[in-house]
C-alpha cells in the first residue's frame, strides 16, 4: 500500500508559503509546453529544471525524488518500445526477427518514441512539482476561485479528509491479517483482501453516519465555509514564473525542428 502520500512531503516543503496560484500556473504551464513541444529537447530541459526546483527550492530529498520518478519513466519506456515497433515512416533503422516475426524500427518511429519519452519525463516532473510543492488545502481555495460547483468542492474536501482515515484503518487491518498469516498463499490473500475491503466498507459507512451526526450537531446546513489560505504574491516570484514560462515557450518554438534523426 502507498503509505507515503506526497501530501506529507508537500506540507513541509520549502515553497509552502508561496502563493499556490503561482505554483499551479508554473506546473500546468510547464506541462502544456511539454505536451505541445514538437522537439524532445524542450521537455528534457523542463524536466531537469523542474527537478532542480523540487530539490533546490522545495527541499525535497533527491533520493525520494529519484525513486518517485523511476516508476512512471519505467512505464513510459515500455510503452515507447511498443510505439517504436508499431508506428512507421522514414528509413528503416533496425530490424529484429523473433519467431519469424520481424519488428522494424524506423527513423520516424524512433523520433516519436523519443519525443514521447521526453514529454512524459518533462510533464511528470512538472506534475511532481505541483504534487510536492502544493498541499491540497491550497488547491481547494483555487477551486473556489475558479467557481467550480460547490457540491463538487465540498465532496472533494470530505473525500480528502476521509482518505487519510481509511488508509490508517486499512493499514491496521492489513497488519492484523499479516500477523495471522492472512497473506501466506494466493487463495488466502484473495480471501484476506476481500475481508479487508468488506470490513473497510462497513467501517467507512459507519464513519459516514457518525460524521453526519457530528455535522448535524454543529448546525450543518448544506455548505461548508472555507477559510482561504492567503499568501500575497511577491512581484519577484511572479516575474520568475512568468519569465520561465515565456522562456520555455520561446525555446520550444526555436527548437521545433530539432529531432534526433532528421
Amino acid at each position, binding site marked *: 500500500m502507498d503509505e507515503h502520500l506526497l501530501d506529507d512531503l508537500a506540507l513541509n516543503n520549502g515553497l509552502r508559503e508561496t502563493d499556490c496560484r503561482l505554483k499551479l500556473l508554473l506546473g500546468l504551464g510547464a*506541462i502544456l509546453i*511539454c505536451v505541445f513541444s514538437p522537439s524532445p529537447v524542450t521537455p528534457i530541459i523542463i524536466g531537469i529544471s523542474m527537478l532542480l526546483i523540487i530539490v533546490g527550492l522545495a527541499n525535497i530529498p533527491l533520493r525520494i525524488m529519484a525513486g518517485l520518478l523511476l516508476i512512471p519513466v519505467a512505464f513510459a519506456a515500455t510503452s515507447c518500445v511498443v510505439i517504436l515497433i508499431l508506428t512507421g515512416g522514414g528509413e528503416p533503422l533496425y530490424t529484429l526477427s523473433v519467431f519469424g516475426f520481424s519488428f522494424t524500427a524506423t527513423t520516424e518511429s524512433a523520433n516519436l518514441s523519443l519525443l514521447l519519452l521526453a514529454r512524459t519525463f518533462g510533464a511528470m516532473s512538472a506534475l511532481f512539482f505541483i504534487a510536492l510543492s502544493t498541499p491540497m488545502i491550497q488547491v481547494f481555495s483555487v477551486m473556489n476561485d475558479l467557481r467550480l460547483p460547490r457540491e463538487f468542492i465540498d465532496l472533494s474536501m*470530505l473525500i480528502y479528509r476521509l482518505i487519510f482515515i481509511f*488508509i490508517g484503518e486499512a493499514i491496521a487491518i492489513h497488519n492484523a491479517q499479516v500477523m495471522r498469516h492472512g497473506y501466506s498463499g494466493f487463495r488466502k490473500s484473495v480471501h484476506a483482501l*476481500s475481508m479487508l475491503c*468488506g470490513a473497510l466498507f462497513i467501517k*467507512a459507512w459507519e464513519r459516514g453516519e457518525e460524521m453526519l451526526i457530528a455535522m448535524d450537531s454543529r448546525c450543518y446546513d448544506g455548505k461548508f465555509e472555507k477559510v482561504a489560505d492567503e499568501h500575497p504574491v511577491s512581484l519577484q516570484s511572479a516575474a520568475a514564473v512568468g519569465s520561465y514560462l515565456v522562456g520555455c515557450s520561446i525555446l520550444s518554438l526555436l527548437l521545433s525542428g530539432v529531432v534526433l534523426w532528421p
Partner: protein
Amino acid sequence: MHIMEGFLPSPWWQFWWLVSLPFLAFGLHQMKAIVRERREALPLLAVAGAFVFVLSSLKLPSVTGSCSHPTGTGLSAVLFGGFVTSVLALIVLLYQALLLAHGGITTMGANVFSMGIAGPLVAWALYRAGKQVNLNTFINVFIAAFAADLFTYVVTSFQLALAFPAAEGGIISSFAAFIAIFALTQVPLAVVEGVIVALTFKYIIDVRPDILVKLDVLTQNMVNRLKEAAV
C-alpha cells in the same frame, strides 16, 4: 494503470476531455439532485469516494508476480450507480495525480473516460440486467466487476491506438497490439478483482445487509434468500 502525463499528444487529450465533459456534467447534475433531496447523502458520497481511492491503492495478489491495483470502480458502480461513479472517479483521479503522481492532468480526460465512465457504465448496466433476470447475486457482482476492469483496459487500448496508429494496418492492428500486451496482465487481474469484489459483497451481506438495501442494490427479499442459502 492510467495513461501518464505527457503521453497523449494533442489533439487527443483535448478530445477525450471533451468526450468526458457531458458525462461528468450529467453525473454532477444527478449528484446535486441527490444532495438537495437528501442532505445526508453528501457525507455518504464522500465515504464512497474515499473508499474507491483507498481500494485503488491496494495491491492485488497476482499470479504472474507483477503487482497491480484494482480499479475499484466496479464495486462503486454497483453500489452507487454509473454516473455518480464518474464524478467520484474524477475526484479520485485528481487525488491520484496530486497525491500519488499516478496519471496526469492533461491525460485525465482520457483516464476519466476509461476508468470512470466506460467501465462503470458497463458494470452498472450488466448488474441491472443480471438483477432483472434473477442471476445469482455473487455471480452477477463478479461479472460486473470483471467487466468494469476489463472494459477499462479495452478503452485505454483503444485510446492509445487512436493516438498511435500502426504503420501497417492502422488503428485496428495498433489496437490489437496494445490489447494483446494489456491482456497478459489484465485478464488475470480482472478475474482476481471480480472474485474479491464478489467476496467483499458476501462480507457486507453477512454483517450489514441493511446498507445494501438502503442503497437499492438489493431488495430485502434478495437478502433473505441469500442468507437462507448461506445457512
